[in-house]
């Protein structure tokens, strides 16, 4: 078995992954990670880590994404801190067994549901919120008493190496490990047998992860993405709407967020007013030269820059740009861009944009927007801006998505009492708050019976009388049971 030094220096292959998992299983068997004290110590350490190293975290985010300090704080650091605090506050309550009622059929008995850790879990995170999407699931895994391996995204290399350094320094490295690398390291990890895999990323890799998990019957949480639509009705407060859309799009990692607005649906008449309002607010937010504004993230790397440029360069699309469109390859920046009514078969209409391009799709009647959305895969989030109660209710009842937010963007992921996850192509499973704890927990059913109260009806040899009694027992009706016992039914 390779020593730790050897593992660090050589390529991380299947054998190394195997050793890693073996080591973590040995830790889990000791029962250490199950104890309340251990979980609390790790969570407290994480909190300390964030408080002591917040500048380093911000610097890494700036290096990987040119993320403004404010965004780094609001969207990553503050949320993770909150997650730690909520877990610390509620952990005892979450760990408590839940008593449940039993029926006459099993009388006398008592039952409860006992939460227990799954064991050794794998968290694979994404590059766009590389701190949040790595540490938040890890918090859930630890709170639930598991040993965990984190595989951060190699597309955010500064954060990946910072996470390796910090987690190893602050946490119990016999139970929490970070493996850096790309496709081959991830593949080596996916060949192992895990008790749960938590993946954040895109649908293509999500399929690979689930297929690998299938070999070992490993349950998965897949936090994926999709094209999040925004339906904008005409009777809304235009300024607030425009601000909130911008706030959820360009002020969120420059549109590189799984719940960022991908396209807007509005009526033909209202579109010009809405677009003007957005242009107006964009000027206020980012000034005359948004391409060089320090308040906006860049596109993460040249691959994504090329991908986004290609979406814009498409003949059918380039003529439909109504705002922005400027790009600067050297600084990997693309200005906030709005595109109006592109053909339905263009690439930009069919792939998740994940960048600073916002589509506007116009319809005759605003209600047509609902059918438009339903003809596509279920998104992670769907938004509607309206004051009309009926439209809102129709939207909520007809649109299936991970979440629906009315009159705002992305708010739901900041609230730890709401489960965050997708449905259909946008994913399976959820987390945040107690949902994170639950995602990494097995809820074991425990039923206690006494040696008294044995119903002869359940045993062979079988008679008609026993059948009557069984029917009454399963029915749960006392009268029926008494009658059956006395042979009256």
């Amino acid at each position, binding site marked *: 078995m390779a020593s730790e030094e050897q593992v660090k220096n050589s390529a991380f292959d299947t054998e190394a992954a195997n050793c890693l998992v073996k080591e973590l299983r040995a830790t889990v*068997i000791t*029962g250490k990670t*199950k104890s309340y004290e251990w979980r609390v110590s790790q969570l407290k350490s994480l909190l300390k880590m964030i408080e002591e190293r917040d500048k380093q975290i911000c610097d890494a985010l700036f290096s990987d994404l040119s993320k403004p300090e*404010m965004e780094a704080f*609001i969207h990553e650091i503050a949320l993770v801190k909150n997650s730690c605090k909520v877990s610390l506050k509620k952990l005892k309550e979450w760990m408590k067994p839940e008593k*449940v009622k*039993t029926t006459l*059929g*099993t009388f006398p*008995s008592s*039952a409860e*549901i006992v939460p*227990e850790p*799954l*064991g050794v879990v794998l968290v694979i995170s994404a590059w766009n919120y590389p701190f949040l999407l790595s540490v938040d699931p890890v918090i859930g895994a630890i709170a639930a008493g598991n040993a965990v391996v984190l595989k951060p995204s190699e597309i955010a290399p500064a954060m990946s190496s910072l996470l390796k350094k910090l987690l190893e320094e602050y946490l119990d490295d016999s139970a929490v490990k970070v493996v850096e690398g790309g496709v081959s390291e991830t593949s080596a990890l996916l060949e192992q047998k895990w008790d749960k895999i938590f993946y954040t990323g895109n649908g293509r890799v*999500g*399929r690979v992860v689930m297929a690998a998990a*299938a070999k070992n*019957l490993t349950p998965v949480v897949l936090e*994926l993405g999709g094209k999040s639509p925004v339906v904008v009705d005409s009777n809304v407060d235009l300024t607030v709407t425009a*601000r909130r859309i911008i*706030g959820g799009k360009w*002020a969120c990692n420059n549109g590189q967020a799984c719940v960022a607005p991908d396209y807007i649906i509005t009526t033909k008449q209202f579109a010009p007013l809405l677009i003007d309002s957005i242009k107006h607010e964009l000027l206020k*937010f*980012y*000034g005359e030269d948004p391409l060089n*504004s320090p*308040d906006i993230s860049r596109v993460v790397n040249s691959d994504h820059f090329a991908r986004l440029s290609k979406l814009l360069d498409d003949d059918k699309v380039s003529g439909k740009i109504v705002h922005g469109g400027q790009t600067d390859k050297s600084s990997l920046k693309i200005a906030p861009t709005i595109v109006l009514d592109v053909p339905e078969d263009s690439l930009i209409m069919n792939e998740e944009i994940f960048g600073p391009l916002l589509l506007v799709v116009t319809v005759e009647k605003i209600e047509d927007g609902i059918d438009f959305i339903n003809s596509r895969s279920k998104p992670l989030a769907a938004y509607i801006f309206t*004051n009309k109660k009926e439209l809102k209710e129709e939207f*909520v009842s*007809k649109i*299936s*998505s*991970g*979440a629906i*937010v*009315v*009159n705002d963007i992305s*708010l*739901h992921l900041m609230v730890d*009492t*709401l489960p965050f996850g997708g449905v*259909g192509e946008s*994913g399976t499973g959820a987390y945040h708050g107690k949902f994170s704890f639950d995602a990494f927990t*097995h*809820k074991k*059913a*425990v*039923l*206690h019976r006494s040696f008294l109260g*044995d119903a002869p009806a*359940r045993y*062979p*040899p079988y008679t008609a009388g026993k*059948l009557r009694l*069984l*029917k009454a027992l*399963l*029915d*749960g009706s006392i009268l029926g049971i008494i009658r059956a016992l006395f042979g009256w039914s």
Partner: protein
Amino acid sequence: MQSHLESDLKELRETFRSGKTKESSWRISQLQGLLHILEDRENDISMALKQDLGKHHVEAYRDEIGTVVKSINYALENLKQWMAAKSAKLPLAAFPSRGELVPEPLGVVLVISSWNFPIGLSLEPMIGALAAGNVVILKPSELAPACSSILAETIRDYLDYTAVKVIEGGSDIGERLLQHQFDKIFFTGSVRVGRAVMSAAAQHLTPVTLELGGKCPAVVDSFSSSWDAKIATKRIAWGKFGACAGQACIGVDYILIEKKNVSNLVELLKRYIKQFFGDDPNGSHSMSKIINKKQFSRLKSLLNEPMVKSSIVYGGLLDEEGLFIGPTILVDPPLDAAIMTEEIFGPLLPIITLKRIEESIDFIRERPKPLALYAFTKDQNLHKRLVSETSSGSIMFNDVILQYAVDTLPFGGVGGSGFGRYHGKYSFDNFSHEKVVVTRSFFIDIWFRYPPWDDKKLQLLKSGFRYDYLSVVLIALGLKSKG
């Protein structure tokens, strides 16, 4: 046949899109339809179970018909509550806004059931799927053909055929089905097929529930009272031989007991076997038969391994033509023999002896997590240790199998025994998506959430995130500079 499948799926999708199945009236009508099937056709169903598995009609009622009736009634009673949106508490910082969790159907779901409880394991998941407002395809096991047939006939006659379909057939139709996209797949069966189902589902990112099996141990402690010892043994004997002749995912697979108690255990087991099945279990018709030749041969070969055969202390009756195996007890077969490494799924009961009963904990932990763990003990310490030091789908003390009938307990596995759960509300949840709905007003827009960024906004946000509202107010008013 191929175009049939595609047109069936198309019809189901259209039905779902129409929104009909979302209505509570529709869901109630389907659940009542299931109830009518079980009431009107009880005899036909019993006969199908007799034909496929030699099940006595009381056993059939107890395990497959009665429990499903109970579950349907439970669903009908609670449906309104389950369908209602739940409101979620939001922090003041999100004021003014409202949060709700709205359960909605997933869409087109596929239920694949197994052959050992062919009626129960088909209908129980369907209750959840229909209560949650989905359209359903049921693919019953072809290894229980009479049951598959009666299910197809009754479901077609009693339920909404534009929304609920039964597709009969073997692995070839199963494979064809799995090539299509579903919104959920619920599978009950073996580990081998479970892997194939999940792999196929991965291509479409279809969420799955896998109800698999494993070797469910029964830990038997020493008893000072002979009454307790008798009851424990009687229940184990029932849990092994009286539930589909041991072909049950939560049946007792093997026993763990201290060496000094073995002979008493074996004597009691023999006594109860006789009490249940008489001198001729085969002729008693109170014990199910083995499902088919393949399973029969498999069980026969488990017994034929050299050291295993010599460990048989009772039974060993094999009637290949009648597909019947009599209750068989073994003491200490080798731990590396197939009978101790594979799920038995038959009426062969190995007893493994230990020096001290506490050794059972390590024994269990060294093996894959089972679907159920049983322990007969009055020792509080052993009780506590078993709950906290072992993991299984469920754990039951002083009885067996009954956890299946408790609507308030989640039923499902962990590790090698599967994942996902159902029964009661868990069935409804299994086939639902809990959609988050947050509503904000346009009133009160917090200006410091937006760029351009400056230090004041940062301080305000820091206070806001700590829910330190006083600081927020002071900073906003310029009376404080750091949050």
